[in-house]
């Protein structure tokens, strides 16, 4: 049996979720600053509020399965404003649904990320190169599914995709209103998406 079809270590969902809470609360200001430079500046506050809610959901639901943990993340974002709230919320909802057992396999995670990408694109109508979270997510899905890579490969592809957003001007979201002024600034949603994948790779061990 291929390693891709083995469930990840028990506690993956919990480790990943807790790591995201910690990391995003710590990085909210830095990411908010990017949104201030080429957007409307609320992304940091949106992240803080989303993960505040994630913590509340965790406290209320006392999750035990991967699906339950990721559902808390999804609900945290769905209870948050901005464009990123519903997009990340539905993205994590697809991820929550990707596992058959208690923890997902890498292949299931790959399918979940692919479904998440499809959902984000269905709502947001962004393509690669529009300077959004899609620029990080699409290469990660590609690495994990078509290219058969590892979670670490996917995280690296996402990181590279996020970096690429510095050179382009935004075609979607508030940043698209500032035109040329967005050039030179990383897209905060793409950076956040790359963080999500890096933390997944860390949590998988």
């Amino acid at each position, binding site marked *: 049996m291929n390693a891709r079809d083995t469930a990840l270590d028990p506690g993956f969902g919990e480790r990943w979720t807790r790591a995201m809470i910690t990391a995003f609360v710590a990085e909210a200001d830095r990411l908010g600053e990017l949104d201030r430079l080429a957007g409307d500046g609320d992304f940091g506050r949106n992240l803080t509020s989303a993960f505040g809610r994630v913590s509340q959901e965790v406290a209320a639901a006392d999750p035990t399965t991967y699906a339950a943990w990721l559902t808390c993340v999804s609900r945290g974002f*769905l209870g948050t404003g901005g464009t990123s709230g*519903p997009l990340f919320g539905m993205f994590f909802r697809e991820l929550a649904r990707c596992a058959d057992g208690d923890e997902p396999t890498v292949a299931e995670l790959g399918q979940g990320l692919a479904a998440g990408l499809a959902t984000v694109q269905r709502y947001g109508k962004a393509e690669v190169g529009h300077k959004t979270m899609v620029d990080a997510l699409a290469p990660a899905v590609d690495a994990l599914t078509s290219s058969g890579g590892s979670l670490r490969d996917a995280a690296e592809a996402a990181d590279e995709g996020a970096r690429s957003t510095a050179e382009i001007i935004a075609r979607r979201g508030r940043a698209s209103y500032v035109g040329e002024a967005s050039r030179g600034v990383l897209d905060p949603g793409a950076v956040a998406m790359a963080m999500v994948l890096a933390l997944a790779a860390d949590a998988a061990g």
Partner: protein
Amino acid sequence: MRRSLVNDPDDLVVEALEGLALAHPTLVRYDAEHGFVARATPARDKVGLVSGGGSGHEPLHAGFVGHGMLDVAVPGAVFASPTALQLYDATRAADAGRGVLHIVKNYTGDVINFTVARELADEDDDIATEVVLVDDDLATEADDDDPDAPGRRGTAAVVAVEKICGAAAEEGADLGTLAELGRRVAGRARSMAFAIEAGTHPGDSRPAFDLEADEVELGVGIHGERGRSRVPFGPADELVARLVDPLLEALRPARGSGVIAIVNGLGSTYPLELRAAARAVHRGVTGRGVGVDRFLVGSYVTSLDMHGVSVTLLPSDDELLRLWDAPVRTPALTW
């Protein structure tokens, strides 16, 4: 210098919702846990109507909850969409077994969050939903055919959609019929606004944008954004004509036909001004041989304390007039 009557600006929306419920305990209740305003007594055996959007536009939408209009209204923070979860919870609360109609003003955030809510309601609760997108603001009609353009903004025509669909829902119309009716109303109605002073965010000391003494902002929206152009300040009748003329130009109602007209204050327009503007609108419309079949004059869709007026024209027919005239009992509209 502008000042607002507030405690902590971050608490304003919630305090105001509490105040609304205290003022109208027989009509509405505020569900603080889920962040929506619902009828004090839920309706039975009808399609549920849900609308919502950013706060700062009061009495929209919570002021229109009650018999003959909405079942649930969902307020976001000032000028910010409510969240998908709020809208999902509201949709569940509004469902009485016959499905739920979403009435959504065309803003990206609102559109996405309502869509998510419908998807959740469908997948998790098997609630049938439909949506009516309200996009009446003529000022934002795309000049070219950019497929990425966000389209016309939704403004005061949403009151007509809520009133008319609300009446039909009360009569027992099913979800599909209501959606079609709402789209017919939204598809016909057009609005346009000007401001002689921008609104001021609670806690700020300056309006969202500045105008010179001889300028008027034409084609303003309701979120503090600039308008489409600036025109010279002048007598009210001239300024009102700058709204009525392009609306008639766009709608081209036949001589002898009639419209439902809404003359709407944007926040701090006072009644003397608004009534005089209503007179000017009436003369502008009837002067083209078009009747004003029904006339709603007041501040219904505001932008904080913006000083200005919007005009909405909705070509009428017998069905629309009958539904418009049907009884309504809400905090902001009762007849």
